[in-house]
């Protein structure tokens, strides 16, 4: 199903023409509250219900289904102002495997709210990776609030990456909370650069409640101008053999402000969780190494930050 003009515009901006044109690749393009293009593949069931400010999505990956190619979802607003709410109910059946790349496209935003509320359940032995790529306007007129509750059954794996590819953050409030069953594996990564008066608030929580569960929470943030970043990453471990690590790096330049609070709670003697946080300016030795090749201080700093966020 395709509504050609907005579909083409969204696909253009998200650079996903090849995926949208591929008959073996599932996709779902949503402009405000309308499905403008979609394709299903075997093993994947998608149900969309529109309402005034967005959509309710119910996605089911059948037990044992392996979705061979990444599924592309695009949530976008081409207007300058508006609200888009996405309520997502996502169930990955036991033994299933799926990769999703979500393109959140707001190229003209001056006053847009993009609000996602997700309930994600990953069955026993299933694998789900979710890459969220954002393309924003340079105006910074965005409020982005992705919230998710994620449950991993035994031996399940969940990986999520958040990345701002283009434009300004605006205000970003990530709030993910994941509960990990026995031998499950959680990886959550957020990489964001803020400038102007952007505000970045990242709250990622992992509860390692199952024996031998593993969790890694990683944040890479750069703030410049008057931007501010607050990162609260929390891992709890309550079962034998649970292992986890919280890793936060934030680089500040200009008048940027960074705040990192890694929290680890361990309540089982055979669990082990570590954390590290590094906040500050661009490393002087890195900077001077690149400057000794002829890069200006600004160019060297940009290259270092680009690497950190890559």
């Amino acid at each position, binding site marked *: 199903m395709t509504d050609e003009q907005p579909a083409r515009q969204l696909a253009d901006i998200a650079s996903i023409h090849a995926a949208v044109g591929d008959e073996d690749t599932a996709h779902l393009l949503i402009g405000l509250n309308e499905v403008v293009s979609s394709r299903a593949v075997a093993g994947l069931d998608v149900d969309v219900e529109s309402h005034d400010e967005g959509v309710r999505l119910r996605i089911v990956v059948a037990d044992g289904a392996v979705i061979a190619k990444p599924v592309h979802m695009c949530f976008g607003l081409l207007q300058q102002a508006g609200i888009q709410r996405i309520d997502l109910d996502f169930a990955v059946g036991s033994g299933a495997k799926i990769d999703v790349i979500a393109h959140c496209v707001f190229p003209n935003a001056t006053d847009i709210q993009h609000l996602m509320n997700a309930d994600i359940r990953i069955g026993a032995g299933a694998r789900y990776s979710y890459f969220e790529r954002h393309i924003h306007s340079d105006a910074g007129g965005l409020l982005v609030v992705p919230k998710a509750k994620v449950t991993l059954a035994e031996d399940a794996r969940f990986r999520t990456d958040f990345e701002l590819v283009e434009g300004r953050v605006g205000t970003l409030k990530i709030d993910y909370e994941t509960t990990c069953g026995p031998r499950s594996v959680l990886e959550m990564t957020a990489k964001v650069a803020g400038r102007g008066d952007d505000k970045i608030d990242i709250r990622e929580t992992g509860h390692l409640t199952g024996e031998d569960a593993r969790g890694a929470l990683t944040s890479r943030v750069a703030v410049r101008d008057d931007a501010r970043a607050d990162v609260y990453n929390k891992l709890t471990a309550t079962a034998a053999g649970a292992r986890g690590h919280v890793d936060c790096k934030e680089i500040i330049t200009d008048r940027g402000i960074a705040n990192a609070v890694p929290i680890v709670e361990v309540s089982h003697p055979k669990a082990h969780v570590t954390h590290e946080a590094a906040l500050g300016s661009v490393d002087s030795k890195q900077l001077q*190494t690149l*400057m000794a*090749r002829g890069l200006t201080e600004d160019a*060297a700093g940009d290259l270092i930050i680009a*690497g950190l966020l*890559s």
Partner: protein
Amino acid sequence: MLYRDAGRDAMMIHRTERMSLLDVDNLSLSLDGSAILNGLSFDLWEGYVHAIVGPNGAGKSTLAFALMGLDGYRHIDGDIRLDGESIRGLSVDERARRGMTLGWQEPARFEGLPLRRFIACGADGADDETITEAMQQVGLDPARYLGRAVDTTLSGGERKKVELASILAMRPRLVLLDEPDSGIDVDSLHRIHDAIGLLRDAGTTVVLITHSMEVLGWAQHAFLICCGNIVDKGPSDEIVRYFRNKCIPCDHKNAPTLAEMP
């Protein structure tokens, strides 16, 4: 194309012309109230491989950092002239754009920075051929390394080679190499030696900061530093003898008696 047909033999060529590239005039530097460099004066001849040798704490690395103008090492007394023109007021990148560069004893790690991008950053418009050739010249297999980042997944020795590859791609006029053999395994040492030969053969002036007798032997000309003073200078084979016979057994390294001062 980078540097070809050079290698160990190229190191043995003795030049007869001596054109000064860098003049150091009465250079002094104090750090945290302690005098580290005490009125050093010397010339670096263009196209030569020089060594600055001395015991730990003699001021060798400080001298290299001061010549390169690193942050924290620019408040010098005296002057440094490149091609006869003072560079004392120039920043690191301004000096680099005039052809100077530095290789660190322990190169920095860069999370996420692709090796290709790092090697190319000092070489304007470097193409893939230039990058892969520079890598091969230091013994890095492009197929194995090009997709990697200059981060903690590389050993210290690998990062050292990556840094040297970036210097080869840059084609500087003057390179200061701080402990070029540090972290390098025995098998790879000849690669570093050959790479220095390639630099020299292409006309780059090389300064080796070292306390290794072997690395000192790679140079044509050497300065012996003790306690921030130049104690001796001359052909490297003579300095090797002095260093081996007088400095290594010395009981008061970096605290010489008056009689031992130059």
